[in-house]
């Protein structure tokens, strides 16, 4: 009998793995034009970033570490 509990579990796991794999977008280095766009930068709005950091600091008594430089170019 093919559909034992063990087999069912295996096929369920395999299906989840396959579905998860299809959700991964492998963006090649030469396809990062849109990721490298200025609008993709998390720090493109200095005032917005300052406000968020102020809120974060007031709430958590900690600051920084939220934004790194550069966009999604992935160059070099």
């Amino acid at each position, binding site marked *: 009998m*093919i559909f034992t509990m063990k087999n069912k579990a295996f096929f369920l796991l395999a299906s989840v*793995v396959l579905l998860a794999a299809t959700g991964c977008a492998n963006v090649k*280095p*030469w*396809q*990062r*034009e849109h990721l490298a766009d200025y609008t993709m930068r998390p720090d493109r709005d200095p005032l917005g970033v300052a406000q968020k950091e102020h809120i974060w600091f007031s709430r958590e008594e900690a600051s920084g570490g939220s934004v790194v430089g550069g966009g999604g170019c*992935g*160059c*070099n």
Partner: protein
Amino acid sequence: MNTSLLKKSLLAALLAGTWLTAAAALKVGDTLPDLTGFSLEGKLPDTKGKVVVVDFWASWCLPCAESFPVLDELQKKYGDRLIVIAVNVDEKASNMDKFLKKHTVTFNIVRDAGQKLVATVSPETMPTSFILDGEGKVRFLHNGFHGESTRKEYISEIESLLK
């Protein structure tokens, strides 16, 4: 069909999928594919017997902009003995044109509009440059551009091939 065979088939399918999605990147020792077979926009120079630098770049890539003056310097320094071909991979030709107006260069520019060549070569980052010997074989490979250190490496490698 028994369970073991099913499991093996599934594993084989997964492995095949992984293999198909992982394009083989061009590496040192490989021969660059014939550039005339990729419908590149722009004029390709005759590279027979010449040392060639093939550079993959895009207008949105900041290190590419930094590398252009250095590549231009190399082209001027070595003249006819060296051919620099910069392959643009921008989706829009207008972005490339805008970039080239800002960064005027004397070396050869071609555009891989269909991104067929770049997909075949599969560079790891932008920019990536390949230095080929007179037989079209990749002798040196540069992932990215790191300023003066890359410039020095270019000069030393090109001169070793020109000897």
